[in-house]
Each structure stands twice: as C-alpha cells, then as structure tokens.
C-alpha cells in the first residue's frame, strides 16, 4: 500500500512538472472544459485544471465516478470538445479537431449498420482525411480482421454479430490506418462479463503487436489494472486528477501461468484504487443528498 503511494503521490503535480526523458505524445496543460447550456445560460464544468502527459507507447487508463468528465477528457484529445482554458497538444501541436493520428473505439461500437464488416473497416480509409489508396485497402482490411480474429466475417452485417464481435470490428476499424493514438471510451462496457475478459486479453495481445499509445476509459478497476501502465483517478465533477498510479505488474498479464490477478501486488493496487473511488463515490452521494 505504502509503495503505491510512493509511486504516485502527488500524481497531478508530477505529471505536469516532471520533465520526462521522452517528450510526451499527448500533453494536457491546465485544461478546463465543459458544456454550455444555451437555454439556461449556464456552463457545466466537467474538468477543472487538468494537467497530464501521455508518453508514446503508453497504455493509460482513466477511472472515476460516473459523470466525472472521463469522456470529456477523451473527447478533448479526439478534438470533439475544445478546452475553455488550457491546451491539449499532440506531438507538440494543438488539437483543433479530429485527426488521422488519433482513432477512436466507441462504447456503442458506432458501426454503420448498412455496411458489411469489410466496408465498415474501409470507411476509415476512404474519406478525405487519412485516405488510403484503393489498391491497398483490401490487404489492410484482411490484416486488421486477422488481428482481431474476425477473418471470414467480411460480408457479415453488424446486426448479425454478437456485441463482442461488433467491438472487434470497431477495434479493427480504428487500427486499420495505424494511428499513433488509440482512444477507447469504455469499449467493453456493453459486452457481457465472459466476453469482456476474453476481449481484454486480446486487446493486450493486439497492442503488444501494434504498439499504439492507448487512452482507455473504464468503470472497472480490474480492467484498468490488467490493461494499463498507468491509471489516472479522476475525482467527481468538476473532475480533477486525484491521483496517478503506476501499474508495475509484469506483462503479459493474461498469461495463465503468471496469474497476475492473484498476485499480492495486484491486490494492493486494487484495494488502493478501491478506497480512492469509494471516497469519490461517497463524496458524490453526500453532495447529491445535501442538494
């Protein structure tokens, strides 16, 4: 327990001030973000003064209570949302909108239902930005499908597939253009528990192969520990970084021999995260009750 804290405290400060040996791939500096409600002339602040650096090749998980601004953070990196204050930079240049260097995997898959698996994956290659020559597309689709274990399903429609398989298509679509950064917004939130575990193991394998930088939002503490190199805990709204935790568990973590989930270190990180989040959840509840 003590070790965990030594690794991470005080997380937010460290992430902002530390000059890492490698330049950060994604850098959020004092970001405040929110949404305007034009009808009521109010502004909801989702994130306040968040500073964070993501290193190249890192798997970063973000956890926090519902409505803490996790999704806002990933939307900032994706370029859907612009910060009210502060800046988000990718490779040193400010994010002004979506770009070919960042792909996203959506919680609800966001596949085009009228397109087959193959044509859904092609969608990432046929548009104005990030266009891949037609002659190259078929080979890339085959490669991506093999990566996610869906070879043979080229002609299936999304509605013919299970939730887990749909998300494999979502992952294949995101990986097919080989973006530097993979943004995943609770990608396994809508699949059943068994499939979820299998998908986590496969994601670890895939990322080990493709070496993407991943920003991964999840509700699940176990999922975060099993997948991430670092875990960012965000406090209840307005979200601030509560703590950044290094997950120093050996990889591959889904190896049956290693049995990481039963190692004492896993237990330590887990209970530490648990108490942090319980704190947040309790705080959120009390605030809700007093309102």
């Amino acid at each position, binding site marked *: 327990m003590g070790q965990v804290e030594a690794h991470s405290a005080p997380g937010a400060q460290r992430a902002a001030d530390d000059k890492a040996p490698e330049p950060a791939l994604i850098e959020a500096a004092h970001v405040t973000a929110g949404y305007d409600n034009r009808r009521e002339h109010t502004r909801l602040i989702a994130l306040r003064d968040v500073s964070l650096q993501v290193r190249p090749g890192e798997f970063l998980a973000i956890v926090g209570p519902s409505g803490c601004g996790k999704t806002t953070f990933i939307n900032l990196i994706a370029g859907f949302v612009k910060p009210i204050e502060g800046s988000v930079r990718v490779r040193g240049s400010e994010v002004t909108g979506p770009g070919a260097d960042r792909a996203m995997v959506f919680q609800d898959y*966001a*596949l085009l239902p009228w397109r087959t698996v193959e044509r859904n994956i092609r969608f990432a290659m046929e*548009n104005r930005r990030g266009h891949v020559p037609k002659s190259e597309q078929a080979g890339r689709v085959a490669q991506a499908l093999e990566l996610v274990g869906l070879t043979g399903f080229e002609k299936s*429609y999304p509605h*013919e597939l299970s939730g887990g398989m749909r998300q494999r298509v979502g992952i294949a679509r995101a990986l097919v253009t080989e973006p530097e950064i993979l943004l995943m917004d609770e990608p396994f939130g809508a699949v059943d528990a068994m499939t979820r575990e299998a998908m986590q193991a496969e994601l670890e394998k895939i990322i080990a192969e493709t070496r993407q930088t991943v920003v991964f939002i999840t509700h699940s503490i176990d999922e975060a520990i099993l997948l991430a190199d670092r875990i960012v805990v965000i406090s209840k709204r307005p979200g601030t970084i509560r703590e950044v935790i290094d997950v120093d568990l050996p990889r591959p973590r889904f190896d049956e021999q290693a049995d990481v989930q039963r190692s004492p270190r896993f237990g330590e990180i887990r209970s530490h995260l648990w108490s942090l989040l319980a704190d947040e959840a309790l705080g959120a509840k009390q605030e809700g009750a007093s309102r």
Partner: protein
Amino acid sequence: MTETIQGATRTNDQQIESIHVSRFARLKNVAITVVNLTIFFVIWELVARAEVINALFFPRATEMFAALFNGFADGTIWPQLSHSLSNFLIGLAISAVIGIPVGLLMGASKVADLILSPYVWAMTSLPRVALIPLLILIMGFGNSMQLTIIVLSAVFPIMVNCMAGVKTVEPSLVRAGEVFGASRPQIYLKVILPYTLPFVISGVNQGIARGLVGMLIGELLGGGGNGLGFLLDKAGEQFDAPMLYATLILLAVMSVGLVQAMRWLEQHAAPWRDISRA
C-alpha cells in the same frame, strides 16, 4: 482465440437456419392467406344467401365477383382504375420529389426548420377535406385539382419523416465519421443519408395511405366524373351494390399492393433492418 472461432461458427449456423425458417414461414403464410380469404368469401356468400341483411346493401360474393368481371369486360372499370392509379402515382412522385429534399433540409438546417415548420405542421394536421372548396374555386373540377389534393395529402408525412430521420441520427455515428476523416459532405452522404433511408421509406408509406384518402376525396367531392371515387359514387346512386363492393375490393387491393411494394422496397433498400421484428 478458440472462443472466437466457436462463437463465429455458432453465429454462422444461426444465419443458415434462420433463412430456412423464413422461407418455410413465407409458404405457410401464403397458404394461410389463401384459406383465410376463401373462408371469408364463402361466409360472405352464405350470409348474403340467408338474406339476414337487405340484399340492397349486401349482395352475394358471387354477384360482386360477377360485377367485377363484367365491369372489366365491358370497359366500365378499367378507364376509371387507370385514371385513379396514374393520377395517384404521379401525385406520389411529385410528393416524393418535393417532400424528401425539403424534409432532409429541415432536418439538417436549423434555420430551414425554424422557417418552414409552422407551415409544415399546420398542413400536416389540417384535415385535407377542408381544402376542397378552395381548390375547386381555384382549379375547377379538373384533373389538376385531383392531383393537387393527392400531393397535399402525401407530401407532408413524407417531409416530416425525412426530417425526423435526419434529426435522430445516432450522434456516435456522426462522431465516427469525424474521427475517421469524413468531411462534412461525406458525413451527409455516407452517414446521415443512409441512416435516414428507412425513415424516407416509412414517410412514403404514410404518404401512400394519406394520398389514397386524398385521391378518393378529390374524386368523390371534386365531381370530375372519373376515377374509382366516381365509380363508387355512381354505383351508390344507382343502388348497384355489387358494383359498389367490387370497387371497394379494387381499392383495397390497390392499397395493399402499394404498401406491399413499399415493404419489398424497404427490405431491399435496407437489408440491415430486421423488418420481421419491427
């Protein structure tokens, strides 16, 4: 990985199976419909023969079929039927050509929606019959009046549905378009329009239903002297019950045929939509 493959085969089997089931179900459905209709007409015939109801209002089924056959043979029905049918199809085509783009525009542009929606909603909810005196005043008893009432009946449901389609596009699909490099026009072309297609089709479906009402109103009240409405009117005036029923049957067949054609179109234009579940 083995799990993937197992899961994969399972889904494949289900696919093949479900095709078998649906083919069998279709044959069964046709058989049921044939038996069903036969029983209906037999009961009709028996009830009419028992003369429980005055034969003046309720002819035998066989008399109705005879009227239908003779009407086609002596050329009283066909000109009216083709007049109605062609009028209706032209009216529907005009409604689609106007209604679909305007509806899409209203869905896509807040300004267009703001400007047009009061008129569209007023016209959608106003009973069409109310317009007949005005239309007769403007256009007289001719064909153009009949056509206009069809268009005014069909165009607004089409418009409203297309607008709803654009407005209900899943936000995550639009986001996916943005993430994967689509420009604004590409998002419209590749995400929003295909998403809206089923709405367009159900709009046209409602347009058919409303348009048929408009067609009959125009022919019954417009007094143009042609069309199935005129046939109904004449048969009623002459106490020709078999002809009256024959015309009603024709109308029913016409509307069922049009709706079925649209369902076929829907299945082929939007195969990803599971019609049987809806």
